[in-house]
């Protein structure tokens, strides 16, 4: 037993040693001539855009540039993309090696062309982080002010030497509780703080930057979202149902909720709390038959209106959502299918295009499951996604009067932000005679029912002869009884 244990430990050390061996070293073939990093703190989702002029110091033409994200930050990285500044052509970004020394995860940016030696290219890298702002203090009273603390790097995270760099932080309001100051290079300007220029900074340079600022809005986070899209060729209808599990991630409510205070402050907007009491979601244009329910029934406090190029769904949760409070609900609506489905004559295939998720600005979605239910008899299903997801599976979904069941595509993804709001495409083949499956099965069902009832009504379960005799006897008995 002990021996096994030692062997196990040995194996463990070997494995970890193996990982260490594989630590990734970036070839120093670039340097940054000028670098500008913008940190956007105006929403609870932190967006950092790093724009730089990269100069190829190597001897060979190169198209690979490595962008580091610290291990701590990488856990909260929801989105990364890169493009050329002038042409806004998107470059491919993929996860590369991990530097165990500096605890840094690398992303490899592949330019669309080779950059010659001693040449330069201007690139913009956008990274989006979730869950990195902390409400401090952790608990606030019902009408208290909420402050968020941002802790980051004063310098841009970079794997190469930079000649000149600058960091700009955009804030939601001009007031600040505290912020890091670096003598002589810090300028605060209304809702903006600028750090820099810093000259000749080394790769991986890190200096803590902390900003503590007020943010008097709810910080909404969707813990899980289940989206069901049901395609019906019969009705020409796309039925959408979305189940939400929402939490206000802001500073927790200190003590208990007082309705009195809440009702009083409704008349004084300046002392507004961070509670979310009215939410609104945008549906695609042409949405109809919207409903809004939760686990215990219909919620009547909602308002739905169609506008020319969108539909707006405004709703109140059953109770105002203070910090740390949860709320779950589901809503659904119907859409005309012809806006989402195209038929390709040549390939004899249907192409279904829809947004992966409807845009809800500034709200993080931790987990999302999209279920696409294709009509019964759809085959050869191919899914094209604009980004990588955790899991994709295919199955069968049986519902009203189905015989073989409908084709079900389930897509599971995590850590979703606005940038992910993109179309996805599913193509499938579908024979037109499949349309008759449903009426056929329905009419067979009813025919069977009628046949059964017809047979039943012609069956005789009594012993007939005896029955009539009994009846007669009964009548006589009855008459007798009366007479007596």
């Amino acid at each position, binding site marked *: 037993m002990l021996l096994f244990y030692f062997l196990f430990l040995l194996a463990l050390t070997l494995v970890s040693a193996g990982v260490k061996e594989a630590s990734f070293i970036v070839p120093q073939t670039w340097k940054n001539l000028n670098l500008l990093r913008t940190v956007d703190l105006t929403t609870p989702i932190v967006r950092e855009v790093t724009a730089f002029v990269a100069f190829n110091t190597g001897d060979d033409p190169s198209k690979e540039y490595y962008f580091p994200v610290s291990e701590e930050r990488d856990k909260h990285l929801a989105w990364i993309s890169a493009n050329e500044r002038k042409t806004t052509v998107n470059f491919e970004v993929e996860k590369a090696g991990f530097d165990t020394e500096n605890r840094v995860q690398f992303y490899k940016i592949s330019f669309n062309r080779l950059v010659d030696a001693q040449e330069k290219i201007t690139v913009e890298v956008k990274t989006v982080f979730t869950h990195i702002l902390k409400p401090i203090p952790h608990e606030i009273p019902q009408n208290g002010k909420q402050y968020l603390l941002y802790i980051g790097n004063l310098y841009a995270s970079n794997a190469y030497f930079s000649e000149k760099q600058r960091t700009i932080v955009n804030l939601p309001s001009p007031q600040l509780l505290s912020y890091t100051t670096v003598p002589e290079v810090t300028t605060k300007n209304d809702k903006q703080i600028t750090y820099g220029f810093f000259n000749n900074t080394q790769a991986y340079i890190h200096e803590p930057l902390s900003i503590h600022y007020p943010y008097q809005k709810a910080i909404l986070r969707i813990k899980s979202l289940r989206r069901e899209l049901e395609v019906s060729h019969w009705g020409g209808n796309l039925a959408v149902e979305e189940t939400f599990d929402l939490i206000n991630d802001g500073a927790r409510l200190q003590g208990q909720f007082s*309705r009195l205070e809440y009702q009083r402050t409704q008349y004084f907007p300046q002392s507004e709390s961070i509670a979310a009491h009215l939410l609104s979601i945008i549906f695609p244009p042409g949405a109809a038959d919207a409903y809004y329910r939760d686990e215990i029934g219909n919620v009547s406090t909602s308002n739905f209106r169609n506008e020319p190029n969108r539909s707006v769904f405004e709703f109140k949760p059953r109770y105002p959502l203070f910090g740390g409070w949860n709320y779950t609900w589901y809503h659904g609506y119907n859409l005309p299918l012809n806006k989402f489905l195209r038929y390709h004559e040549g390939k004899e295939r249907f192409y279904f295009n829809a947004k992966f998720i409807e845009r809800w600005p500034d709200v993080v979605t931790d987990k999302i499951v999209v279920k696409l239910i294709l009509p019964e008899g759809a085959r050869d299903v191919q899914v094209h996604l604009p980004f990588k997801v955790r899991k994709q599976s295919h199955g069968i979904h049986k519902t*009203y009067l189905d015989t073989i069941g409908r084709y079900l595509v389930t897509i599971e993804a995590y850590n979703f932000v606005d940038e992910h709001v993109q179309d996805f495409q599913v193509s499938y083949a579908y024979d037109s005679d499949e349309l008759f499956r449903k009426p056929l099965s329905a009419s067979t069902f009813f025919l069977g029912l009628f046949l059964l009832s017809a047979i039943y009504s012609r069956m005789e379960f009594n012993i007939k002869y005896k029955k009539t005799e009994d009846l007669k006897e009964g009548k006589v008995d009855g008459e007798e009884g009366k007479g007596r």
Partner: protein
Amino acid sequence: MKILGLTSQNQASLLKVIILALIATTAIGSRLFSIVRFESVIHEFDPWFNFRTTKHLVANGFYEFWNWFDDRSWYPLGRVVGGTVFPGIMTTSAVIYNVLHAVNFPVDIRNVCVFLAPVFSSITAYAAYLFTCEIKDSSAGLLAAAFIGVAPGYISRSVAGSYDNEGIAIFLLMFTFYLWIKAVKIGSAYWGALTALFYFYMVAAWGGYVFIINLIPLHVLVLVLMGRFSSRLYVAYSSFYVLGTLMSMQIPFVGFQPTRTSEHMAALGIFGLLQIIAFVELVRSHLSSNQFQILFKGFIVLSFVLMFSALVLLTAAGYIAPWTGRFYSLWDTGYAKKHIPIIASVSEHQPTAWPSFFFDLEMLVFLFPAGIYICFKELRDEHVFVILYGITASYFAGVMVRLMLTLTPIVCVTAAVTVSKLLDTYMDLSTLDTTDLSSNTQTTKDEKAKKDGGPSSKKPGDNAKSEDKKTTKKKDNNNHWGVYGIDTRLIVLSNFLFLLFIFAWHCTWVTSGAYSSPSIVLASRTQDGNQFIIDDFREAYYWLRKNTDYNSKVMSWWDYGYQISGMADRTTLVDNNTWNNTHIATVGKAMASNEDTAYEIMRRHDVDYVLIIFGGLLAYSGDDINKFLWMVRIAEGVYPNDVQESKFFNARGEYRVDSEASPTMRNSIMYKMSYHNYNELFNGQGVDRVRGAKLPPGNVKLHTLEEAYTTDNWIVRIYKVKPLDNLGRTLEQAAAFEEGKKRRAKSKRRGNN
């Protein structure tokens, strides 16, 4: 006369099918007001428990349900659900749910439960049709079906969403009675066994099965006393009683009650009596009449004395349980108020006020005695049954409001017999003297047929069998009385047509106005006429469900127990299954005590939250302050030294909440929780709109509880029980200290300024 190539008999049956289908649709349709107005939701209190157990049954299967020990109610005692529940309705819904899912119809279990009662009401209409067909004929049957389809007395318990035992029980009641009548008529063990089978279903579904097991023996007894003992009766009752009793004992909640409680003894006694009579009949056929007379008398007296003394002895020895409180209150309406306040506190256990008979039955209540009279005129075995049913049910309906439900079917049946008899008489063409007028009547009849659903239009076809008998009768009658003039006919018929219209109109009005509110959602109108939904209950329950710990214990008055466990999914101390009076009294005591006593009780029961209903702001009269005296009474019943009802009245004997309220009242936590922060809402002078009282000035302070949540219209108020003080002070001292600190801080600030 051939229409559509059908013989008149086929026409009649086609019409019958169509009319019954229409009645079924109407019955379902008129119960959907609540869905159209509000939504598909489970109503009121008890249905929430049934819904919760149904969900448990569907999710975990039958055996798990059968053995379910619910540790989330009656904390810390828990409740053996499988053994204390009538499983009929849950099993029915689960079967429907599973069948629908087996054929790929993914209907939500909530919708199955919501629509169960309306669907069953349409089957009840069919059962009433069958029953009345046995009493009179199919035209009366159709009328009875139409009546019971819309009668408010039945609708009150079977609107969509009212997912309660009564929803299916009335169908079972009617159908069991139909089968029983059939069994007595035919004298077949097959029908007797069928009666037993449906009786078993009824036992599984509703406690009201006791009505069946007493009414049928009563019927048998009366028939025997009338000298109508026959082998048919013997076969029917013996097969019914033996099979029915054995089957009913399979329900754990019933168990050995059929052999051990007084409620079931009558049935057993009659069973014995029948055996004796059958034996005596047998002996008589073998003996001379003189010998027999002596033997018979001696035997009857002896066996009666023996049986009765055995019953008394067994009751005294404790083998047979005496009558339960709820049954005593059926005989003595004041009994419950004196001895069991918990039964008296339920509004549906109150004696019925006379207007509610008219409200629930409208013109049927006048036709009912006439129907009974007609039954007396014919007095076959089944008519005896109808008479007995009518008399007993009308007594019970007078004693308890909720038993109006059992009266409704028989009132519908007898009223249908009356109306049908009347139509028979006034529309019988054979008594018409002038031939040229007959064509006129024909048209009126057709019109009428169209208007009231046309039950009378099939009369000629239906009564084909009894036609000759009737005509001869009629001819005899013509000698004495008859309806000769067309004008007389028209007056009477149009009057009744008018009454039928008014009936339908009244039923719809009552249904829509009185019985279609889910009571968990309230509706009012804004000034511009839009519907305004007051959804405070669900707001509070959902808040509890989502924002408190899953194992929190919520204390509330028992009325809200089922709703809290159903909607908020939190552990409750007491609920609507009022099986433990002491526990309820403990909660009542906590509510009625001052803060420190209440705190001790709440700590002892691990209470985390206290939920109360307060209607003062919105003038919602069903709130806890109005129920408070019942809490006090029930608490006093168990803790007479700690709680006294008299202390909650002021010196003048008034129950007040304003400045003249008694000190005990004002110190009770119920009072404090209701009015906490309420004065401040009005800037110092709160007005209770339910009781029309101005509150005493000053803030209501709480030191052992803190407000955790109050809903939009203040209807539901939830308080959190404070934990013990960290420094070991009493909570009162701690609160006073905090208060002082605040004051000092304030004065300091003022001083600085």
